[in-house]
C-alpha cells in the first residue's frame, strides 16, 4: 500500500510534466501535420530562462515562468514565420529536416552561449523544499509543477474548446482548405499553434528547471518521450496527450521499481503496439 501510494504519486507528478511537454508537439502536429524535432530544444530554452533569472538576476525562478512562456511563444511564432512557413511548400522530407536543423541550431547555440556544463537552480522559494504527508515525501517544486501543468492544460483546453479562436484552430486542423474558404486566416492559426506549442513546452522547461539539471543537450531526452506520448495519446488530441503523459509517467516509475534496466523498453513496446494496432493513437481523430 505504502509502495503503491508512493509509486503512483511519483508517476503522476512526472507524468504531468511529460504531458505538458507533449501538449505542444501534439497541437502543432494536429494543426499542420508537421513533426517538430526541435520541441525538446524549446523546452531547453525555457530551462535556461529560469536559470538566467535565478542565477544572473538573483530572482526567484518562479518569476521566470511567465517570461519562459512568453519567450517560448515568441520562439514558436518566429520559427513558424521564418522557417516552417517556407518549408511547408517543400516535400515531406524537407519539413523533417527543417525542424531537425532548427533543433541542431538551438542546441549548439545554447552550447556556444552556456558551454556544455551541467547547471542547476539552487535558490528559490520551492527549490529543495520537501513536504511529508503520511508515507509520502514529495519535493514541493515537483508538486507545484504538477499543479501548474494541470492548470496550463486546463487553460489550453479552454482556449481550444471554448473560444472562437479555438474553434478556428480546430477548423484549421480538421480541414485547412475548408477553413480558408470560411474566411479563417489559416496562416495565423498555424503561427498560433506554434506559439502555444512553444509557450507550453518552455513553461514545462522552466518548471522542470526547479528540480532538474540543465544542459544544452537535455532536449533530446524529453523529445523522444514526448513523441511516444503523442503517438500514444493520438496526434492532435489534447486529452490524449494528457492521459498518455500520465500513463508514461506511471509506466516509467513502475518499471523503474521492478526492472529499471528496461524502463524505456516498456514505453517503446507500448509505442510500437499503438502504432501497429491503433495508428491514430488512443484519442486521435
Amino acid at each position: 500500500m505504502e509502495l503503491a501510494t508512493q509509486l503512483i504519486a511519483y508517476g503522476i507528478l512526472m507524468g504531468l510534466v511529460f504531458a505538458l511537454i507533449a501538449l505542444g508537439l501534439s497541437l502543432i502536429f494536429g494543426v499542420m501535420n508537421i513533426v517538430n524535432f526541435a520541441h525538446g530544444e524549446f523546452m531547453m530554452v525555457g530551462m535556461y530562462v529560469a536559470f538566467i533569472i535565478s542565477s544572473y538576476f538573483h530572482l526567484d525562478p518562479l518569476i521566470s515562468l511567465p517570461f519562459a512562456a512568453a519567450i517560448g511563444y515568441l520562439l514558436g511564432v518566429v520559427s513558424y514565420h521564418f522557417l516552417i512557413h517556407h518549408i511547408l511548400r517543400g516535400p515531406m522530407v524537407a519539413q523533417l529536416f527543417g525542424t531537425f536543423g532548427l533543433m541542431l541550431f538551438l542546441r549548439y547555440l545554447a552550447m556556444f552561449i552556456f558551454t556544455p556544463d551541467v547547471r542547476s537552480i539552487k535558490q528559490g522559494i520551492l527549490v529543495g523544499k520537501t513536504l511529508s504527508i503520511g508515507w509520502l515525501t514529495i519535493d514541493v517544486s515537483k508538486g507545484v509543477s504538477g499543479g501548474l501543468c494541470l492548470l496550463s492544460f486546463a487553460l489550453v483546453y479552454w482556449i481550444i474548446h471554448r473560444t472562437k479562436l479555438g474553434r478556428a484552430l480546430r477548423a484549421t486542423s480538421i480541414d485547412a482548405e475548408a477553413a480558408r474558404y470560411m474566411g479563417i486566416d489559416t496562416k495565423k492559426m498555424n503561427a498560433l499553434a506554434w506559439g502555444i506549442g512553444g509557450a507550453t513546452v518552455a513553461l514545462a522547461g522552466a518548471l522542470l528547471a526547479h528540480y532538474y539539471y540543465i544542459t544544452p543537450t537535455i532536449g533530446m531526452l524529453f523529445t523522444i518521450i514526448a513523441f511516444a506520448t503523442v503517438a500514444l495519446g493520438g496526434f492532435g488530441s489534447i486529452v490524449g496527450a494528457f492521459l498518455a503523459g500520465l500513463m508514461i509517467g506511471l509506466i516509467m516509475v513502475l518499471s523503474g521499481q521492478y526492472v529499471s534496466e528496461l524502463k524505456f523498453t516498456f514505453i517503446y513496446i507500448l509505442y510500437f503496439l499503438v502504432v501497429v494496432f491503433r495508428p491514430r493513437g488512443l484519442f486521435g481523430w
Partner: protein
Amino acid sequence: MKASKRIFLFLFVSVLSILIVSPTLFAQVKEVKIGVILPLSGPLAPIGKSLKEGAELAADIVNNKYPELDISIAKWEGIPNLGGAKIKLIFADSRGDPGWGSEQAKRLIEDEKVVGLLGAYQSAVTKTASVEAERAGIPFINPDSTSPALSKRGFKWFWRVTPHETWFTKDLFDLLDGLTKGKAPGVKAVPKSKLEPLAVAAENTEWGAASLAEIEKFAKERGWKIAEGFKYPHTAADLTSETRKMIASKAPTFLFAPYVADAILFVKTMKEMKAKPRLIWGQDAGFVEADFYKTLGADVNGILTRDLFSAEMGKVKPVAGKLNEMYKKMTGYDFSGSSARDFVGVQVWAHVLNNAKSTSPEAIRKALNELHIPGKELVMPWKGVKFGSPFPNDTQQNELGSGVINQYQGYPDGKLHIIYPFEFATSKLIYPFPGWK
C-alpha cells in the same frame, strides 16, 4: 615577353604556390598526429570537455618548455628523439556512441593518418574503437576506461594505462573491512551490522554493468550481504523509483556506479526523499566530475568517491600539486581522476614516441611493451607505468597503477580529501554520512 623570362615567371609562380599551399612541406619541425576520441557532445559532454583539457595541457607541456616542472616532458620542447617533432592532438567526438566512436577511429586512421589513438573514456566506446585500431595495426592507448574485460581480449595493439574496476572494487571492500576494524582515520571500529547490507545502483552500459558484477563478486568473497543491486539506463529522465527502492531496502550503505547527469539526479532525489544512509560511495565517473559538485554544492558533503586523484595530492606529491595548479589556471577547476588520467595518456604517448625513435607502428609497439615510466613523473599516485598482466588474463595492462577513495568535505568551498589508502589520508573520515539539510 622573352621565352626565358616567361619560364622564370612560370617557375617563380610555381614555387610560390607550392610554398603557399603546403607550408608544412618546408617546416623544419615535424608533427606527430595522435587521434583522441572523446565524448564531446551528448550527456557526457561536460566530462569529455575536461578530458580534452587534460590531454591538451599534457601536449602543451610536451611541446613547450616548462623549466619549473620537475618531469622530463617539461624539458623536451617536442619529442627529442624525433627531431623535436611536436605532438598534435586530433580530437574526434564519439557522441558517447560505440558505433559512432568506431567510425571516428576509422576516420582518424584512414583520413587523418594518425600515428596512434588515445581514448575513449566510456568502456563501450573504447571497446569498439580499439577494434578498428587492432584491425589497422595502429597502437591504441587507453588512459581512462575501467571495464576489466577490455584488457582481457588479448589484443596486440591495445594498452591500458589506468587501473581497472577490479582494483577499485578491491579498494572499496578494503575500506569497508578497514572501517569494521577501526583503521579508518578518526573513526572507531564500526560494527559490520551498521554497514550491512549494501544497496547498489549501476548504470547499464559496459562500465556500470562491469562495476556491479565486480561488487557482487567481491561482496561474496569478503562476506558482505547485498540487499538490492540493479542496473538502470543512465539517460533516464527520472530516477525516483530507483531511489525509492534503495531506501526501501533499508541498507545503510549505498553504492553507485553512475555517469554525471544520473549521479546528480540520484543525490537530488535522495535528498528529496530524506534518505538516511550511513555511507554513500560512488564509483568515480559521475561522482567526481566538476559538474557534480558545482551543481550540488553543499549536498555532496560526506559522500565518498572512488577516485584516482585529489587536489590535495599536492601535499603528498608536489609535482601533482603544480600540474593541478596549471590545469586549474587553464580551466577554472581542479583535475579530476579522469582528466588527470588523460593527461597521463598523452604523457605516455610522448615517452613511447621518444623511446621508439620512430613513428612506425611496430617500433611503437615494441617501445610500449618495454616502457617503464617511474611514479615520480606522474600526476597520479601510482608507482609508475609498465605494461604487464596484474590480474588473471590481463594483457598489456599497466601493473603499477592504484586508486584512492576520497571524501567531499566542506563544500561548496571545500576539498576532496583522501581517506583511503588510510596511510595517505589527508583528513579524518566523516562517518556516519551527515545527511542533507
